[in-house]
């Protein structure tokens, strides 16, 4: 499987880009130890104008490069934890509904239908507006709306696996439901879940950037979305302030999508041909 | 003069040559049976005649029909012949019809394409055709979708579609394999009647020698993409010459009771066709019960054995 993944040039490119962004996020406090929200230079320096600010400065004289590096931390942090939360909810609800069936499944299905009816981004806005906008609350809100697809996927996998011979055999051996779910079925259901989770991180990053673009981000942390929001005010004079952080979002999301496509082809040899 | 003359037809894929130097001819109004196991290249032969071999297959040789070589025709010209002069029906009636279009529209499509009928005229003709293939209440069924019909009815619809433009050759690729035994005879009977009434030649592809005896005028037995025997059906069933034909006869369940030759293993011919790939000598040698040493090195040529009888086996007598 890993060999198949590594043969896919696009997937390797995605993985490389992702690694670069992760490295940037980890190294941000070392490279730019000061608060990226501090004013450090002349305002409105264009990229390349002053070598000490390779990506220029914004309307308040803040270093764009520092903002980009620290913004990567916020994007990845929220993307990752919201996905973990979404996966935890989706996989457990989907596993229970799919494995046990019956009324438990009905309840699970009703819940997922409700969440798929409410437009997810609007619900995130409402939740973040009700709670105060902080990294934790934004993560919670995004995680809370991102579980339905995983739930449906997990449920479908469990429904198909619960009738398989090895599961019947495990039941015959007297294994409990918990053991069968976690040790017998889950490992088999994992591949499509892994593929989806990388798309979930991408979606979460897009949502976070839209939130902080609208001004619903954590006011104490710089994020790519809030940089775009600030840049927008001076769009006519200094469009690079909008272009640069946006390009970063595109690169991060594209990298995750490439990795997801690569995983999909490596884990689903049947689809890989086309 | 043959209606359709196939000469040295070869269908090659990167990893395998599916049809190798196949020659046969079909005469006006006759039924020619192409017989062989699955994988013997008979379906690809049919697709090659239609110009529908899927990528990356390459077709060479010649197919003479109406004074032209079909394989040399430009695609646009071939499209005009396809469905009008040469038509084809397939093995799987369940999936061969478009699920979202009414059967009437699918039949009418052919008529509008090749005969330029108006929508209205094509619909009326479609109803006539449904009647012709003995579908009850054709005026109502013309607006049905395929999933409402039984397998036998779907195959009748396929036949109606294929004969819509009075083709001169109809290729039927395992037309009854997917159907109930009781329906099989009805469908073959229908095909035979249409062949006579419309004066078209029928190329009947099958793995079932029982079908051959009852419906074919001539039989070509294929193995690993080659013709190993050609005969009239009575002669073949009475006295199959090629060891593979003998094996097929033995493996044909409905004929066992009246088979003259009984092989050691009745149920099947041992081995599989895969063993013939890339082999220098006779492709059947690895499974043959009368194999000689020379069979491994020299591919046997077709020999004439009596009137209109050909066999590709040096041992056969």
């Amino acid at each position: 499987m890993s060999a198949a993944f590594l043969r896919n040039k696009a997937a390797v490119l995605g993985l490389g880009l992702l690694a670069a962004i992760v490295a940037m996020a980890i190294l941000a406090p070392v490279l730019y130890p000061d608060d990226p929200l501090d004013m450090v230079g002349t305002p409105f320096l264009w990229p390349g104008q002053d070598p000490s600010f390779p990506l220029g400065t914004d309307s308040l004289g803040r270093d764009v490069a520092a903002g980009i590096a620290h913004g990567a931390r916020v994007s990845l942090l929220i993307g990752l934890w919201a996905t973990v939360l979404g996966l935890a909810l989706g996989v457990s609800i989907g596993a229970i509904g799919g494995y046990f069936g019956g009324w438990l499944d009905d309840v699970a299905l009703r819940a997922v239908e409700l969440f798929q009816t409410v437009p997810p981004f609007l619900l995130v806005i409402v939740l973040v507006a009700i709670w105060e906008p902080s990294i934790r609350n934004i993560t919670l809100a995004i995680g809370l709306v991102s579980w339905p697809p995983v739930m449906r996927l997990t449920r479908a996998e469990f429904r198909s696996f619960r009738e398989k011979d090895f599961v019947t055999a495990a039941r015959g051996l007297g294994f409990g439901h918990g053991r069968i779910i976690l040790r017998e079925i889950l490992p088999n259901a994992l591949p499509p879940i892994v593929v989806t989770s990388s798309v979930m991180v991408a979606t979460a990053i897009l949502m976070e950037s839209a939130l902080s673009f609208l001004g619903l981000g954590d006011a104490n942390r710089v994020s790519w979305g809030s940089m775009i929001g600030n840049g927008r005010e001076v769009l006519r004079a200094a469009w690079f302030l909008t272009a640069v952080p946006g390009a970063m979002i595109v690169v991060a999301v594209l990298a995750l999508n490439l990795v997801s496509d690569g995983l999909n082809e490596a884990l689903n040899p049947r689809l890989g041909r086309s | 003069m043959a209606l359709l003359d196939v000469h040295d037809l070869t269908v090659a894929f990167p990893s395998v040559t599916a049809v190798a130097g196949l020659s046969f001819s079909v005469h006006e109004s006759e039924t020619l049976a192409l017989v062989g196991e699955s994988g013997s290249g008979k379906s690809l032969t049919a697709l090659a005649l239609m110009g529908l071999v899927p990528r990356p297959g390459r077709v060479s040789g010649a197919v003479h029909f109406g004074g032209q070589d079909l394989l040399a025709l430009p695609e646009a010209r071939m499209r005009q012949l396809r469905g009008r002069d040469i038509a084809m029906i397939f093995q799987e009636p369940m999936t061969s019809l478009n699920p979202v279009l009414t059967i009437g529209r699918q039949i009418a499509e052919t008529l509008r394409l090749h005969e330029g009928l108006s929508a209205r005229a094509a619909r009326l003709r479609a109803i006539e055709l449904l009647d012709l293939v003995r579908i009850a209440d054709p005026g109502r069924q013309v607006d049905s979708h395929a999933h409402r019909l039984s397998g036998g009815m779907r195959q009748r619809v396929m036949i109606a579609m294929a004969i819509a433009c009075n083709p001169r050759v109809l290729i039927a690729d395992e037309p009854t394999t997917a159907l109930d035994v009781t329906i099989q005879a009805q469908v073959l009977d229908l095909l035979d009647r249409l062949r006579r009434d419309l004066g078209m030649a029928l190329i009947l592809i099958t793995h079932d020698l029982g079908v051959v005896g009852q419906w074919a005028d001539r039989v070509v037995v294929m193995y690993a993409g080659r013709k190993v025997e050609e005969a009239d059906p009575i002669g073949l069933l009475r006295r199959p010459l090629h060891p593979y034909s003998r094996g097929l006869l033995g493996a044909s369940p409905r004929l066992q009771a009246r088979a003259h030759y009984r092989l050691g293993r009745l149920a099947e011919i041992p081995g599989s066709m895969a063993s013939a790939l890339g082999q220098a000598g006779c492709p059947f040698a690895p499974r043959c019960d009368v194999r000689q040493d020379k069979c491994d090195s020299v591919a046997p040529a077709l020999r004439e054995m009596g009137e209109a009888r050909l066999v590709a086996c040096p041992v056969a007598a």
Partner: protein
Amino acid sequence: MSTWRRVTRTARRTALQAVPSVLAILALNFLLLQLAPGDAADVMAAQTGSPTAQTVLELRSRFGLDAPLLDRLAAYLDNLAHFSLGMSPRFNVSVLSLIGERLPGTLALMLTALGIALVVGIALGAVMARFAGRPLDRAISVISLCCYSIPGFWIGLMLVVVFSVKLDWLPSGGMHSVGIEESGLAALLDMARHMVLPAASLSLFFVAIYARLTRAAMLEAQEQDFARTARAKGLSPSAVAIRHVLRNALIPVTTMAGVHVGALLGGSVVVETVFSWPGLGRLAFESMMNRDFNVLLGILFLSSLLVIVANAGVDILHSWLDPRIEDVG
């Protein structure tokens, strides 16, 4: 069964199925309303200028806000039964009329974007499937993967830079030019000009999705036996692709279009904010900035209803596209 009967039967069934969904959304909305910090009394008291604990309590009891949870639920449902979603303290008009004023703008933008996405996406997907594995397919693949990764609001801003600031071809925001007649062809053309950039920004992501979906669905459909039958009739490749393959591939693609209405509504919040488009999304943004939860939750409620309607619409469309549907329900 006739197409008409099939479609009406599906319509009836989907309408019945929508009932529990609507109830569930009501419950969720009520719950969120209870969670929201500060109620209408707080806001109204604040508007009087000098709020005291006394006035707040008086207001609470006047509007029944100090009643037990169940009574408040009953009042909420009673309001809804009279098509009332409460008042907006900020604008001092009923939430419903506020939303009703903005709904057409959003619907126009969303439907245009969805239309563009479906037409362009399906066309691109069909081209990709036709040239699968060849350079054209690869090129469109790469472009669509990029479009799939671009935030709508950002591409909107970039389009403004190029087409409004640099080239000065298109307006950068709003719905009408100042001083243009309210009606007539000129007004319509003017609105269309204003719609180009927001609709393009909103649809880009979905164009990419439909292109990918259509490609996959067509590649699957063209391997099916019925496609071979169509070729055996002598149909040209384009007739096979459009009449037989695409017609079947549309079924999975349209299913997704229903699912995407919710995402389109979410996307319209940011895109309408970027382009100052007077629609629901912009209203959501404004009420969020003002912490006007009555309006915000009203929008959430109506958006959910819109999603339910869209899904029902897709079900009905399906029963029309796919004659096999009748056997399911």
